[in-house]
């Protein structure tokens, strides 16, 4: 299991940050991603999920703090920080990270039931990904359909760890964790015979936490028609910017 970061302690004192030249208030110790969100500024993110301790895995939320790149989901706000967020340089880097995630897994959006609700796909659209420029890895990923109500399709896993954090922090079960290293790293379950051997339930927060079509409730595919899915009308991040 990877070590997980905890949410930074917040003192509650109000401080001021400068983000892309705009001054915003923040509570000291609050992460700069959350402070930006409170001010209606969207920092693209993938492994971050509200209500979970930050992971700092994916680096999509990388911003520059006083000129140095760092993940916005883990960096605490403090007085006078100067941040860069919505810049060509950072958005290009974020798009390249998304592209690498696409080519590393086997993400077949056209037939994926998460299409339209998938945060990875939505980030691809928001960041202007036209087609991956990196070679597809075509890795063999295992699909675990052993559970009667929940399916784990590792082809679509981006190793964000949201399921692991949600299972541990919110469900109190610790069903998921990482195993292996490098290209061989994968999401694992705490039973020798797959999901069926765990105590996961379709209503668990861990299932809802998956940003892609990796961890799914079975038999729910395409119940929502095209046009009414989460990202059909507005890009990801619009809710933060509203």
């Amino acid at each position, binding site marked *: 299991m990877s070590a997980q970061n905890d949410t930074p302690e917040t003192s509650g004192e109000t401080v001021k940050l400068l983000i892309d030249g705009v001054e915003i208030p923040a509570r000291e110790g609050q992460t700069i991603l959350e402070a930006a969100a409170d001010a209606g500024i969207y920092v693209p993110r993938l492994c971050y999920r509200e209500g979970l301790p930050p992971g700092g895995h994916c680096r999509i939320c990388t911003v520059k703090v006083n000129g140095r790149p760092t993940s916005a989901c883990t960096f605490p706000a403090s007085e006078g920080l100067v941040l860069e967020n919505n810049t060509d340089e950072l958005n290009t880097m974020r798009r390249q990270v998304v592209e690498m995630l696409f080519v590393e897994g086997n993400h077949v959006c056209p037939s994926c039931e998460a299409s339209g609700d998938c945060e990875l796909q939505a980030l691809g659209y928001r960041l202007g990904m036209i087609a991956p420029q990196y070679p597809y890895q075509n890795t063999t990923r295992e*699909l675990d*359909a052993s559970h009667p109500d929940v399916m784990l399709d590792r082809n679509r896993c981006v190793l964000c760890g949201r399921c692991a954090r949600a299972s541990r922090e919110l469900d109190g079960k610790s069903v998921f964790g990482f195993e292996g290293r490098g290209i061989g790293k994968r999401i694992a379950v705490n039973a020798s015979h797959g999901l069926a051997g765990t105590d996961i339930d379709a209503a668990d927060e861990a299932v809802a936490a998956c940003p892609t079509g990796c961890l799914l409730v079975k038999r729910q595919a395409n119940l929502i028609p*095209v046009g009414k899915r989460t990202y059909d009308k507005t890009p990801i991040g619009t809710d933060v910017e509203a």
Partner: protein
Amino acid sequence: MTVAQKTAGRKIVINPVTRVEGHGKVTIHLDDDGHIKETRFHIIEFRGFERFIQGRPYWEAPTVVQRLCGICPVSHHLAASKAMDVVVGVDTVSPTAEKMRRLMHYGQTFQSHVLHFYHLASPDLLFGFDAPVEDRNVIGVIKAHPEIATKAVLMRKYGQEVIKATSGKKIHGTGSIPGGMNKNLSIAERDELLRDIDDMIAWSVEGLELCKSVVEADMEHLLAFGTFESSFVSIVKEDGCLDLYDGNLRAKDADGKIIFDQVPPSKYLEYIREEVRSWSYMKFPYITSLGKEKGWYRVGPLARINNCDYIDTPIAEAERVKFVALGGGRPIHATMAYHWARMIETVHAAEKIKELLNDPDLQGEELVRSGERRGTGVAWIEAPRGTLIHHYDVDKNDMITLANLIVSTTHNNEAMNRAVKRIADQYLDGQEITEGLLNRIEVGIRAYDPCLSCATHALGQMRLQVQLVGPDDAVIHEKFRE
């Protein structure tokens, strides 16, 4: 199209065959005297859907398998959904779901038939088989007949709008799901489609009249062109009515006598088998009771019009009556009659769309039903090009373990090869080969509107079955190679 003529090898190759969907080639083998020895219509592309859908969840099939094709994905979308209805234990979907699916299907049949007739076939019919290739194409049609071309584009657009309103997208939608549909038709969508439907019916009748005028102007030649006799297979309703969405299978022989009738999908394996030949990626189905040699048959518009007892829309039925009169009590066997039958169906599809749009069931709220899970689902549909069979086995974890797809073009495989041979015999034998003459081969293939992408979907080693059969037809010994 490139044409290679090898005098030493006595072989003519047409590669690729143009104005068809997908990639195929024709080889014509000549003997030393220049006479036709053998012809073959090869399918040279490769797909593999039957293999890579294995190990995927059953609910993915309707959205994955439709990607076989960009022309009639709706057929695969619906055939897979219907098969998965069986798997999820739903024998009858809700009236709203069935009528939404029917609307989607008629929209697709309409646009696909229009695409074929105007964009692919009309250059041959309007300009003649020997017209210069620079003119004998869809651009030539636009230049010479702008009014027809404009209507063709708008008709195709209309069909695509019907598909979008029912499936969510014009191509590769998600509307049909195991057990039903994910949407009904809003009043706004209905009114938008109703606005132009009378034009669509009128224009499809014009298309039919255009087709008839071409045939009638050169009746003797066109009805004999590439013509041979065969059996016919299609779906009909219980009372023999034409039905493109659902029904049971009927087969008629060359004289119009019933070979089998009202066969339900679950029994298809008892009535139809498939043969593999080494030189094509496309299999050769045959009617089991007649055997490999005599069991081949034709499907598609001509088979459907020949096989059905009547059509339940007025204009198409009146046209069917006129059409079948040509046969004098026997089925019509002319290859070029496919175009005529296809345009009767285009009219029928437009009439059906209007009928459905006026049905308030389309605004119903019951969209999905469920039942007790089953391990196997088989379903069929009449795709624009003919009968389409989807068969899936699904394990207890909801994963597909077997997929068998017999698509329209595959049913017509032997027939297309026969058409090529017949046309080669009729026009090429002993002649100096010209492009115009070779175009006749393609004209014959095009009449069947083959979709070669759909037809080549298998992957992996073909299962080999060897039977030792005694003189009394009893199986003495049987072996399988997996």
